[in-house]
């Protein structure tokens, strides 16, 4: 923890506490919550001993920490805080039943609390990163490419606003003291996408390549230019090339099925329509994000004939389809596609109906990692996103042994995929590792 952390602004702390307190007062205090309180108190005492301050740092899971904070304040006002409070807690502890873990067992390794507010943000986090974090968390910026672009733009702002401290250089200081905390902060809202991971390792390589002789201004300019170039080459131009190739693949009379929303699929279809191709689109969608509705709306407004259905209508529509176009979150090195949850079902039905499945994917989304199932590598979104306002699920946390699970991605087997359209051409799934080495790891050769 950097020492700048110490004077946490009081308004922020206060802004954090009221709402959570209301919530935790409504729900009963249970054993594990008490345990957490105790742990938090312990941590606070330790922090006090070390730094002599009253409010703990770090990004705590906001909802459960609201209560402990209040207790701590009470404790610190009562002077001799340790023993009496601990006593009363240990008396109260056995009574309430142990709170159950609401995370699903086989996804537990992925279930991390997601930060929901910017309250409690460390002071040295750039405002642009705070905004981006909130946009991630509310799915305003959603989708692998959009998140990549937004992150790179924030990196650019970080570089521009960065002032090199005395007795050090940008090259030595920036990555560890500015970039990494910001990446960590963004991860606390949502895990990194594969494309973001690729871009970050590229950016760190770029920073390490900056010559130590360059002036700070020049070094910053060089980094910003590098980011611009990267965006242009790996995203803008790549999208352009992919859309062009895909447009050529669309024929008159085609019925194209797509799932959820992919920016590159949308762009390709719009471009094909503008090019005078006559085709129909079936947009399949699913809960809880309903991204496909956005796509369907955009396409329909452009004048394309669109049929919209949810995944329960998939089997009914697959027979009419001539091509399936899918977006990607990432392409794994074993040729499998990591994409929005439900994509594997679409590809499976397409395979069963013998329809070609074409994946549109920039090479920046390729990764050397492999995945055999959808459980090891995934992202679990907060389960409360599944609750329909006013529906029966609102009180699901009070129902014993009931768990909600909201994974974000699934892995589509390589045998369901006929072709991957990239900016470097159309390749089969087996060529993913080769292309990845060529494009994303040029230094290793």
């Amino acid at each position: 923890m950097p020492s700048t952390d110490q004077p946490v602004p009081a308004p922020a702390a206060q802004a954090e506490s009221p709402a959570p307190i209301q919530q935790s007062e409504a729900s009963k205090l249970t054993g594990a919550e008490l345990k957490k309180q105790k742990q938090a108190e312990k941590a606070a005492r330790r922090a006090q001993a070390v730094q002599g301050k009253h409010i703990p740092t770090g990004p705590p899971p906001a909802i459960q920490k609201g209560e402990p904070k209040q207790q701590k304040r009470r404790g610190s006002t009562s002077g001799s805080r340790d023993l009496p409070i601990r006593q009363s807690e240990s008396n109260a502890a056995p009574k309430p039943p142990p709170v159950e873990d609401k995370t699903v067992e086989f996804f537990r390794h992925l279930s991390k609390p997601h930060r929901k507010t910017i309250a409690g943000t460390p002071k040295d986090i750039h405002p642009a990163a705070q905004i981006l974090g909130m946009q991630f968390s509310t799915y305003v910026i959603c989708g692998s490419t959009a998140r990549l672009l937004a992150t790179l733009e924030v990196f650019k702002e970080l570089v521009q606003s960065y002032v090199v401290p005395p007795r050090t250089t940008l090259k030595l200081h920036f990555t560890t003291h500015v970039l990494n905390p910001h990446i960590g902060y963004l991860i606390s809202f949502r895990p990194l996408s594969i494309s973001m991971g690729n871009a970050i390792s590229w950016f760190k390589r770029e920073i390490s390549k900056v010559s130590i002789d360059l002036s700070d201004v020049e070094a910053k300019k060089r980094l910003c230019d590098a980011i611009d170039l990267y965006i242009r080459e790996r995203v803008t131009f790549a999208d352009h090339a992919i859309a062009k190739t895909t447009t050529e693949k669309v024929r008159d009379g085609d019925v194209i099925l797509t799932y959820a929303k992919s920016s590159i699929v949308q762009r390709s279809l719009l471009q094909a329509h503008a090019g005078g191709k006559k085709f129909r689109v079936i947009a399949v969608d699913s809960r809880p994000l309903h991204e496909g509705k956005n796509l369907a709306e955009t396409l329909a407004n452009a004048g394309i004939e669109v049929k919209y259905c949810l995944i329960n209508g998939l089997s009914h529509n697959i027979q009419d389809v001539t091509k399936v176009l899918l977006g990607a979150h990432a392409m794994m090195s074993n040729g499998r596609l990591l994409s929005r949850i439900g994509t594997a079902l679409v590809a499976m039905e397409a395979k069963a109906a013998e329809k070609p499945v074409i994946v549109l994917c920039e090479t920046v989304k390729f990764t050397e990692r492999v995945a055999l199932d959808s459980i090891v590598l995934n992202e679990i979104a907060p389960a409360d996103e599944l609750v329909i306002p006013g529906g029966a699920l609102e009180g699901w946390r009070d129902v014993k042994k009931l768990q909600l699970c909201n994974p974000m991605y699934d892995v589509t087997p390589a045998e369901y995929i006929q072709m991957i359209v990239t900016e470097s051409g159309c390749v089969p799934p087996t060529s993913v590792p080769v292309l990845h080495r060529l494009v994303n790891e040029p230094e290793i050769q």
Partner: protein
Amino acid sequence: MPSQQAGFAPNLGFYLKSLKAQPVESSIENLISLLKRRQITNSRPCAVATAHLLLQVVAKFRWTNVDKLIERIQDVGRRLIEAQPREMVVGNIVRRVLGMVRDEAKEERNDDASDSASNSQMGSPRQDHSDQGASHLGGPPPSFSPLRFSTTEDSDSTEANGDDVFGGKHQAASRPPLITSHTSYAPAGGLPPQKSMFQLLSANPSPASTPSGAQSPHNTSSLNASSLAHRITTSSKDLKAEVIEGIEEIVDELDQADDRIAAQSLEYIHSNEVILTHSSSKSVQKFLLEAAKKRKFTVIIAESYPNDHEATHKSVTRSISTDAEGADELSTPKFSKSLSDAGITVILMTDATIFAIMSRVNKVILATHAVIANGGLIAAAGARIIAKAARVHRTPVIVVSGVYKLSPQYPFEFESLIEYGDPGNIVRYQDGALVENLEVDNPVYDYVPPDLVDLYITNMIVADHYKSEDINFDKPELQ
């Protein structure tokens, strides 16, 4: 829309109460409109309503011979099916009743004829009919009902694959007589010699023999036809009383079907399994609850959005109150436990996650709306991708279904059996421009091909409940 009608809307419970008071004709009209307006939906309520209505029809109909009764039941059945052709259980129940009437009539006949010398000839009436009918076989023109069901000859050829668990049996055995034998029963056709005698005996239904519900022994759980037949031969009750008793047994069977299926659950579920199921089926829930008495396991429930998710959510959070089935009257009141109460870990997931979690699932248990002649299912939309994903992962798929859901129908085009729901469930009317520009598709049912199903669990041994004469009773052009 139907879900919005709360307590006061007419539902199954109300209908059954009204049955006793109203004249038969208005009861029939009432049920027809309830079916048309989808105020009685789903297999079991439809089956129960049909059985109760037929009970009234038989009880209040004054008939002089058994053909008249059969005609009357067929006529009522036709009207009900026309009202809602996709509720296949309605037709099934009518067929069951018709078959039962025919059985009773035959028994009666055999009793009477046992003295006469022509006994040996009576022993195989069906054989006679089919022989007689052979000359008629070329007759039926290939005409189709609005739903475009195939004629039976067509279906026999298209379902050559050996996977039909139920269909094969009664098709192979009884298809040939099915088209023709009815004509031999029809009043216009040549009457078999024994018919006149049997007319004489059943001609005068005594008023005393019109039993109320209380008269029938409710505790009789022996539902199979052979014991029924045995009882009939020993006692010589009036035919009408027998028929009414038979219908009451069907009603009892409908009541007990889920419990009888559930009783077998321990044979299929072992400890620490992960079981995937779909939407909110009472049969599946009872099945799992029964197993939960002895074993601990995990259940993953796919919520079946957008048509059944509310019921699913209610069933997992145990806020079951107003149920589409009219639970207050009919389903056993003691059943209010949810799975999570029974100590099972319940994981609710969206339909899209099925492929992702299928690698962790040990068994898939599905409920169904109907089972058609080739063993394929008409089940809640989404069932097909579940069954398919299970097949891809080599996970066994078990279907629990009462025998009353087995239908002898076999459509040309499965799409004809699929009902489409309210697109407003997917794109709300508030979405304005979207509603204008989009075509929205919301199927309620899926067709699941039989090769995706590993096992059917039913409430009793699948016997020939339907008489071949009645398979196409609702389509006179095929008879």
